[in-house]
């Protein structure tokens, strides 16, 4: 099991010097899924943006991010272009906002493909359709010709997954991909992700606030609160024997909601 991506002492500070992410370190193994759990404002999304070097201009980042021996902070724009989309794919919480509103989806697939590989327009379209069918979208030619606002949330997310995996990246970063969807679609997308990851050696960084989903998808779990990774370990240890008080509260809260049969704490 080789380490694909190593994040060491990641610090993100804003202009006033407040640290939003503090000394966070973790690593992504090939073929394994790492779930980063935290509530809103805990800095988990910032961490994922830092990996892709997409932090907003007013934030300063320090620390070391190494992708298979390559230090990501010193990369040139050109090298970054081949890594983003090529080596690291990304999907986000609001899929309809991640697609250009006035360009048909098919064209966006072709643009993506031709930015990384010297393929003809026809070849790119064929690849795109193959990918779209892999994400269980039936009428691919209809999807290719429609716009982002014409598709449902679930379908848009499937398009985003197809786009992220189009160039067979080594790492997939999923930043709360299902929190904006209704419960039923949420489950479909989670099952789809599990399947797509299963038979490849791709690693996934899954960011969520939902303990249940990460329990289902992840091999290792990291719990983040107020910018610090307070606890990290295999899924079994974290869920059955959490050390940190906050993680215990998370598990209790989740099991009560889930099981419904837990004892009534303050009867």
């Amino acid at each position, binding site marked *: 099991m080789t380490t694909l991506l190593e994040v060491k002492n990641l610090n993100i500070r804003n202009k006033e010097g407040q640290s939003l992410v503090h000394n966070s370190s973790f690593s992504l193994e090939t073929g394994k899924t790492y779930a980063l759990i935290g509530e809103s404002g805990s800095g988990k999304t910032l961490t994922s943006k830092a990996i*892709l070097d*997409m932090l*907003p*201009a007013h934030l300063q980042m320090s620390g070391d991010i190494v992708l298979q021996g390559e230090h990501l902070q010193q990369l040139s724009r050109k090298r*970054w*272009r*081949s*890594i*983003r*989309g*090529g080596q690291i794919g*990304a999907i*986000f919480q*609001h899929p309809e*906002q*991640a*697609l*250009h*509103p*006035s*360009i048909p989806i098919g064209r966006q697939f072709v*643009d*993506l493909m*031709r*930015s*990384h590989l010297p393929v003809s327009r026809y070849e790119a379209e064929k690849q795109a359709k193959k990918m779209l069918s892999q994400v269980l979208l039936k009428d691919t030619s209809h999807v290719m010709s429609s716009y*982002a606002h014409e598709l449902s949330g679930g379908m848009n997310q499937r398009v985003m997954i197809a*786009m992220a995996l189009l160039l067979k990246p080594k790492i997939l970063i999923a930043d709360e991909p299902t929190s904006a969807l209704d419960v039923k679609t949420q489950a479909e997308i989670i099952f789809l992700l599990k399947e797509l990851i299963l038979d490849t050696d791709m690693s996934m960084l899954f960011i969520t606030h939902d303990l249940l989903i990460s329990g289902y998808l992840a091999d290792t779990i990291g719990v983040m609160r107020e910018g610090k990774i307070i606890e990290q370990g295999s899924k079994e240890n974290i869920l059955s024997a959490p050390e940190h008080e906050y993680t215990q509260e998370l598990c209790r809260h989740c099991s009560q909601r889930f099981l419904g049969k837990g004892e009534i704490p303050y009867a």
Partner: protein
Amino acid sequence: MLRSMIHRLFMLIVTFVLFSLFVFTLMRLAPGDPASMLLLEIGAVPEQSIVADLQKQWGLDQSFIQQYLAWAHHVFQGELGHSFSSGEPVLSEMIERLGPTSKLIASSFVLTLFISIPIGIWMGLNEGTMADRVVYSMTILGLSIPLYWLAILLMYTLGVIWPVLPVVGSSTIRHYILPVTAMTLVQSVYFIRMVRSYTIQYSKFSYIEAAKTRGLRPSIFYPSYLLRSMFIPILTLITTSLPSFFGASIITETIFSFPGFSKYMLEAIFRRDFPVIQGSALFVAAFIFVFNYMTDLLYFLADPRVHLDKQRWEV
């Protein structure tokens, strides 16, 4: 779509009528009574009887509204009366002088666009770099340079110390160089800043950021992703800044004694030539309102989905 275009047309007419009412009231407020003013102007003694007939003839004794309606009736059919000083019909005098002014405005307008849009976009994309900060601080100073002072400096350097360019008149192309340069410099400072802020704003949109995370090639990313979405705001900027070029042309034409429409209008003030002032003001206002209406129409044809709440800024 059609309903709101008719609504806009109605609004345009209401606005223009309000403006003409405003001009008319100002005329009525003018000190001195026009009849005796005219008599003095042409050297006759303003006896009571003659003044009274003139007032009657011009209907000055009727109520304010009746006077306005009578006046508006003439004006809206293009009869703008005769200039006090030259006695020529105002309309023909204005049209004669439109040539040089429209050439001046058009050339500096186009030049400003060609200079400012590329620089603005380039600065927006390199936000925060040293070059961006240097040029940005230059634009801060640029906004504070008075056009008339800049024109004098240009006139001094290129007309006095190293007399290469003509400084007065508008007969040959070379006469246009100095005025156009002055206007272009001042206007493009404002344009560069606006285009830069649009570029910064639009490159932070979610779908543009997402496109970056997919590592699109620059030759694909900039033209068809970033610039395509910026087309409407830049078009708005262009159409809403035309009136400010007219404002600048008044100063430029005066300094370089450039015999255009704006200079003619300004001189009318010194001669207190009411018909000319009134005629040119209404003409310019009509042109600007119709121009704005045309651009609204253009938006609807280009992209009906566009939501029309443009900011109308003026330098």
